[in-house]
């Protein structure tokens, strides 16, 4: 009996995740220094965990409003106003979701008609392209380049644009490249979005982890709030990846549309995660800044080492990813990553796991201890030297 015949065609056609394949290999090896874990190495600060424990003690185990606890939505509204200069009404412009992943999924399900074109900059987070495919949209990747430090430029957007383009997906700062856009670059993108009447979905999950300059949200620019869905969460800034809690903010009709999907598929995000999220927003700023300072130092260390080793790497202004070029090794990114893993037991994810534009690059996550970063870079150095001596 061939049970696979029951699987929907568009799911069969979904390519296997490049990360998953790499993970299968790494998980079978011992004593690997992994620079491939896209989450903070910190545990969630205790006071946030304790808030969830307290909520359990108080018997908070029931469904919440589909939109999320009103106290959390109020806290989100204040937080976004203060840190992003955008005003959203807690009552009908904010939706609490099961991670930004769910927010993205329901946004696409609420907005994408079959055949609608969705633009997104690439290399990008692994779920964007599949999310478009799953909703029967058409993915329109827009390349970003090392020469621009992987910022998205209006020129690249214009070159990639196609008639029928409906949505522009942004992730700034970007996983995997660490690229982000300054105000002027965002203004150019906003101008383009308005010209072409694009709806912007902006995933700003790494925004707090901006090390130099200001983080600007495109939704805060004139004329953009009415055509932007702002996505954010707690996973990276507050080390709450496993809690699965995030939020979407946007014009009430769009939030309502997303809520229609959410109410049937999820009902509501976990009440414990929501309670913990309130604590994070009210009292988590100090802890977040401490973590950010450490990421900053780690970034400086690993990027300097990559460049010393010969793996040209731009200094990412945000996120906790470095995206070095492996060109000097003479190998492609997959062979390099596998060779490094086998020879020196260091895991970096090949850039093509994040889209075709990732060719020639690997992603290194520096959310790990200094001693690990120092040891990993020494091992990569040895590996590079072994390659050059072979030639």
């Amino acid at each position, binding site marked *: 009996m061939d049970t696979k015949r029951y699987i929907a065609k568009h799911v069969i056609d979904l390519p296997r995740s490049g*990360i998953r394949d790499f993970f299968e290999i790494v998980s079978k090896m011992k004593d690997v220094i992994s620079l491939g*874990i896209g989450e903070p190495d910190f545990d969630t600060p205790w006071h946030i965990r304790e808030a969830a424990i307290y909520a359990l003690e108080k018997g908070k185990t029931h469904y919440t409003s589909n939109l999320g606890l009103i106290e959390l939505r109020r806290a989100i509204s204040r937080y976004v106003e203060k840190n992003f200069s955008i005003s959203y009404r807690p009552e009908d412009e904010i939706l609490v979701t099961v991670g930004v992943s769910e927010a993205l999924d329901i946004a696409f399900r609420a907005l994408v008609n079959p055949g609608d074109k969705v633009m997104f900059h690439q290399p990008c987070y692994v779920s964007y392209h599949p999310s478009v495919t799953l909703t029967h949209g058409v993915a329109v990747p827009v390349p970003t380049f090392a020469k621009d430090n992987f910022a998205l430029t209006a020129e690249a957007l214009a070159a990639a644009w196609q008639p029928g383009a409906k949505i522009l997906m942004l992730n700034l700062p970007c996983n995997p490249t660490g690229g982000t856009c300054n105000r002027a670059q965002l203004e150019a993108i906003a101008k383009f979005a308005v010209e072409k009447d694009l709806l912007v979905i902006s995933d700003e999950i790494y925004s707090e982890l901006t090390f130099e300059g200001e983080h600007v949200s495109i939704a805060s620019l004139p004329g953009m709030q009415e055509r932007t869905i702002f996505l954010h969460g707690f996973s990276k800034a507050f080390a709450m990846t496993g809690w699965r809690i995030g939020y979407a903010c946007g014009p009430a009709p769009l939030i309502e549309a997303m809520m229609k999907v959410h109410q049937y598929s999820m009902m509501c995000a976990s009440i414990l995660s929501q309670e913990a999220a309130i604590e994070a927003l009210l009292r988590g700023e100090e802890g977040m800044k401490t973590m950010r*300072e450490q990421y900053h130092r780690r970034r400086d260390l690993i990027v300097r080492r990559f460049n010393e080793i010969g793996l040209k790497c731009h200094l990412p202004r945000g996120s906790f990813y470095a995206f070095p070029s492996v060109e000097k090794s003479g190998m492609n990114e997959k062979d390099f990553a596998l060779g490094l893993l086998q020879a020196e037991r260091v895991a970096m994810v090949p850039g093509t796991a994040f889209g075709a534009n990732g060719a020639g690059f690997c992603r290194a996550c520096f959310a790990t201890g200094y001693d690990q970063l120092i040891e990993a870079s020494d091992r990569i150095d040895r590996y590079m030297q072994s390659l050059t001596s072979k030639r």
Partner: protein
Amino acid sequence: MSPIIKLLLEGGSLTTAQMGQVLNLSEAEVNRQLDQLKKDRVLLGWRPVLNLADEDAGVVRAVIEVRITPERGGGFNRLADRISRFEEVESCFLMSGGYDLLVFVGGSSLQKVAAFVSEKLSTIEGVLSTATHFLLRSYKEQGFLLDVKAEENNRLKVAP
């Protein structure tokens, strides 16, 4: 706060060579800065943080609330300094509230600590009263939890 101090406070137990790598300084420069911090009395010294919960460790600790008479021209300083110099005194703090000095004391037995309080501490001219509290059990020492079993790192090795 100097970058070196910030790095030390992160508690990663890095070698000076590793600190140099992180801060992009030579190891010699790290050592030079550490020496300067010691000279400036910003960095006072190093002590290991130990779990002395084992009964065989032979350490009894107490916290003593001391009320003293402040002096003209010196306040509490002269007396606090004199008390602090005792070998038994681990820490000595001037506090707000119902007493003046909070003194952390260690000794090899309850009798030894009691003797220190009654014979050495209480007898100092200017000490009005003492209230001694013996430590029964420690849960956290200088930022380290005691009762934590080393958990296996169960993070995924690769994650998007």
